[in-house]
């Protein structure tokens, strides 16, 4: 069982996020990390690999410091890593990102491709679907449970109105939610072992992707305007002295909300 996990290096959501002068997310001048939602994908891949004698390859597309994201995954226990690094990729939109990912996945042996439910920066949740489209593979997304047996992947998806059990043949793309598992912390042994694990860096040329098809210039969408939302003005705060609930409702009535 060969498992590829796609991960993203994102700005730390606890810190300040901002835009660069070309209206792209500033990824160079801010603290970054492995997207928290991708840790669940790495954990699930490791669990499946452990029970099936499989191999986990972690894949990222991003700037130089994105290596930190794959390194964290190697420390958690992934076997190998690939970092697609090319200046031409800067500013790529979701379709272009999926193009690069698809080319990279295509070069790797893959029975199962696992992703998180969204990145914590863009939160579009469209790349798994686009990747599936590009690779011509079925997608089973937002799994809160995954089992792999006899060439079939079976997931549970907890929706708003129903819980669904979905089956797909392999190879397939699976995305997992933050409800699926408890990602492990890298152990000291894992951190030491990660230093010796293979980490390859591929360029667009290595993938046979035309640089003109990716990057800000090739994006299918354009950002025209960015405005910082004015901070919400803190309103009135009262301390409950036995009438807090009544005061609350008086406020709501004044605002015509009840």
């Amino acid at each position, binding site marked *: 069982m060969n498992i590829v996990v796609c991960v993203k290096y994102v700005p730390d959501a606890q810190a300040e996020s901002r835009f660069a002068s070309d209206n792209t997310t500033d990824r160079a001048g801010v603290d970054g990390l492995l997207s928290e939602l991708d840790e669940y994908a790495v954990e699930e891949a490791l669990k499946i690999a452990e029970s099936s004698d499989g191999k986990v390859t972690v894949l990222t597309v991003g700037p130089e410091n994105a290596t930190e994201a794959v390194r964290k995954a190697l420390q958690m226990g992934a076997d190998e890593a690939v970092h697609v690094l090319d200046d031409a990729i800067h500013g790529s939109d979701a379709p272009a990102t999926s193009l690069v990912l698809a080319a990279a996945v295509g070069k790797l042996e893959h029975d199962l491709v696992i992703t998180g439910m969204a990145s914590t920066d863009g939160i579009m949740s469209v790349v798994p*679907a686009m990747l599936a489209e590009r690779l011509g593979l079925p997608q089973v997304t937002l799994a809160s449970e995954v089992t792999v047996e006899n060439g079939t992947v079976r997931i549970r998806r907890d929706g708003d109105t129903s819980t669904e059990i979905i089956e797909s043949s392999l190879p397939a793309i699976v995305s997992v939610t933050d409800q699926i598992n408890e990602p492990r912390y890298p152990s000291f042994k894992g951190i030491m072992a990660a230093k010796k694990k293979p980490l390859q860096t591929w360029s667009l040329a290595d993938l046979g992707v035309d640089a003109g098809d990716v990057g800000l210039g090739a994006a299918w969408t354009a950002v025209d305007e960015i405005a910082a939302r004015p901070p919400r003005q803190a309103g009135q705060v009262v*301390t409950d002295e036995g009438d807090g609930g009544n005061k609350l409702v008086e406020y709501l009535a004044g605002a015509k909300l009840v």
Partner: protein
Amino acid sequence: MSQVLVLVDHVDGSVRKTTTELLTIAARLGEPAAVFIGNGLDNAAGTLAEFGATTVYKVEGEGLEDYLVLPKAEALAAVVAQASPAAVLIPSSVEGKEIAGRLAVKIGAGVITDAVDVQAGDGGPVATQSVFAGGFTVKSRVTTGVPIITVKPNSAAPEAVAGAPASPEVVTVPVTPSDLSKAAKIVERRPKEKSGRPDLSEAAIVVSGGRGTNGDFSPVEALADALGAAVGASRAAVDAGWYPHSNQVGQTGKQVSPQLYVAAGISGAIQHRAGMQTSKTIVAINKDPEAPIFELADFGVVGDLFTVLPQATEAVLKRKG
């Protein structure tokens, strides 16, 4: 005038409110046309016409409901090829975004997700998004292909069209799902028990509980029911197993923007703010006067939710007589 396609979100023909919002937005951009996949068009046609759809593309095919998004993306691609629309509007649900993603790659068109507003512009529709936990507002447009935009609930006030025909023109689009689209199949569906409360993503009022409930959501639910509101929960409350994940408000749950958001016993961590910061009015109840949620609140009560909420519930019920 070119058509603007709206993918209808419905359950057996019962049209969800987001669809009427999307039709209203579509009317700003061109001639609204609905794409209906599944059963129950007879129930839906009147509503679709009332909110401006002049044409309904009725997609017919075997087993469209039993597979995941791919057959729907294929069907939508077929309608796009037939109608050459000015734009495609899709509800920003989990399924909607995946359909949008596959459609975008299929037809070579740009996609914008989670728009909170869409207006006509010189270079095509201009979509407004709220990004980085609501910290920034971004206006963008699709520059390649037929613009595909997924729109969040409550992004427009649905407007019925005066003098609209009672029923729209129905164009049947036969599709055959590809073999690939049948590879992922729903083998079992267990419906969840209905809470009887409004849908969290669409509700005009949301009352949420967090760590401060200590697992007892009854005062939160009681106030929600008095207000006719949906119930939400913080990630801390969901992780503790106190409330279902489908009710989680925040970065990894639902992003809501109701008229009124009541946060009870929620500190207001960035993960939660990302899901509710764009609410019109925010009210907070928390024991800790230093809780960051008070920085966002239009009105705050420093106090114990177990005394404040029941009193508020009683006051609401009294007002409603």
